[in-house]
């Protein structure tokens, strides 16, 4: 049933009928498996990957990666303060890392000022945040395994043996 995930991860619009066809399973079995994946949270949701360079969303025009050093809390470690931070809608992604800092955030905002304001007013002022380093993102090349440009045309000759 893992193959179903491989297929859906490539193209979320593949129908259960089509999946059944290529995996030699019954349509009902495929539907049931997908339902279970959804219920168990293996499949969280179905999204479309948009090349944001081409459709600018004014409210999210600027993106920054922010390194955050935090003081862990007794009994909660990093989780509680991390939640305090990732619940801000400006935070698009949040990771706890090993190394010289603790959290890596991806933050989006209307402009540099908006992101700066978020950092200086919301993030840095939290009690357990010891310091931040903000990197503004200049260009995206690849995200989550997808290269952000249109696939090149088939370069093969139209007929060969």
């Amino acid at each position, binding site marked *: 049933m893992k*193959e179903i995930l*491989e297929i859906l991860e490539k193209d979320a619009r*593949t129908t259960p009928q*089509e999946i059944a066809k290529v995996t*030699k399973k019954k349509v009902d079995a495929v539907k049931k498996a997908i339902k279970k994946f959804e219920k168990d949270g293996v499949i969280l949701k179905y999204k479309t990957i948009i090349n944001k360079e081409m459709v600018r969303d004014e409210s999210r025009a600027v993106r920054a990666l922010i390194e955050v050093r935090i003081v862990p809390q007794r009994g909660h470690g990093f989780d509680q303060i991390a939640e305090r931070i990732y619940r801000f809608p400006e935070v698009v992604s949040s990771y706890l890392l090993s190394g010289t800092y603790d959290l890596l955030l991806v933050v989006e905002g209307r402009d540099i000022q908006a992101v700066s304001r978020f950092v200086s007013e919301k993030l840095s002022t939290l009690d357990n945040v010891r310091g931040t380093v903000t990197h503004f993102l200049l260009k995206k090349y690849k995200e989550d395994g997808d290269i952000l440009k249109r696939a090149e045309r088939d370069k*093969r000759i*139209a*007929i060969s*043996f």
Partner: protein
Amino acid sequence: MRISKKVKNMPPSGIREFFELVIGMKDVISLGVGEPDFVTPWNICESGIFSIEKGCTSYTSNKGLYELRLQVSKFIKNKHGIGYDPENQILITTGVSEALDLVFRAILNPGDKVLISDPCYVSYHPVTFMAGGKTVFVNTKGTGFKLTPSLLKKSLSKGVKAVLLNYPANPTGVSYSKKELLELSRIFIKHDLVVISDEIYDELTYDFSHTPISGLKGMKERTVYLNGFSKAFAMTGWRVGYACGPEDIISAMTKIHQYTMLCSPVMGQIGAIEALRGSRHYLLEMKREYKRRREYIVERLDEMGLVCPKPDGAFYVFPSIKNTGMNSIEFAKKLLTQEKVAVVPGTAFGSQGKGHVRMAYASSMPDLKEACVRIERFLKKNTNLAVTATE
């Protein structure tokens, strides 16, 4: 009279006109391509680029880079348990195509006969002919395009020196189980035949594991095992293949190779080393994708009423189009002009390919789906088929 008699007498490709038609047409979905739609895995491309940066731009040893021969030797040993000495039993060639040419020139005397199944890959007969050999075609239409012991026995006549095997096969996708190969091998041994085994599609075997015939008892000393990187690693344009076999034949092949090709392109050889050393994760992913496409296209063709046995390997289906009432060239031409889908008429692969077309499923799933919609529409419009099909 500038052109040699030999070339003049070379069998022409009967469907050149059809090819010109395909190449001249825009926005065609082509199921006529005999190579993977994947690009070469990046680790291999990157090693090729790095080799150029380092200045590896010269000839290599005629036999090929020792490191590559060593890796090939280890690869075959690990995978199939067959030992080939990288010093004198492996030759790196410019694709399997060159290896085929070399092996025929190395072993054939004028008039020596070679058994080849019909239909088969397009170059087998011409290279035999160019090497002075005579092709004895074995009609495999009645046996599901497979050589069988009884077919073989019938075709064996005086002067047959070699037999050419190709499995999984282009254009039919047919392959052989170990048991079937064992039966065939007994006849090869009994009649002291040289076996040339083109196993370029071996990695793309979907339902059972591939057995190289050279691994069977009594076969290694009479088999020239041909393989390469084009299909499994999506490296068609790199032109790297290899021949493994008995020392005398490999040495004879090397003799010709050193005067004609010198060596396979060095960047390609370096890329091939990376292919064998690097992760095979991507390879398995490609294989799973091909397998899904195979299931899809076989079932869709079946729904449309085209008889299409499920191929064991490679990335071709070879459905019968007999019940459309069209011959294979007519079918291919009409499908191309009406629906802009290109397939290869079966007759390109020999006279027994008539009534069939070759469709490659080395195309993206969306293209494959669209091609099937078009083929179905085409059948509805031109034949009594596909009327009840639903999708």
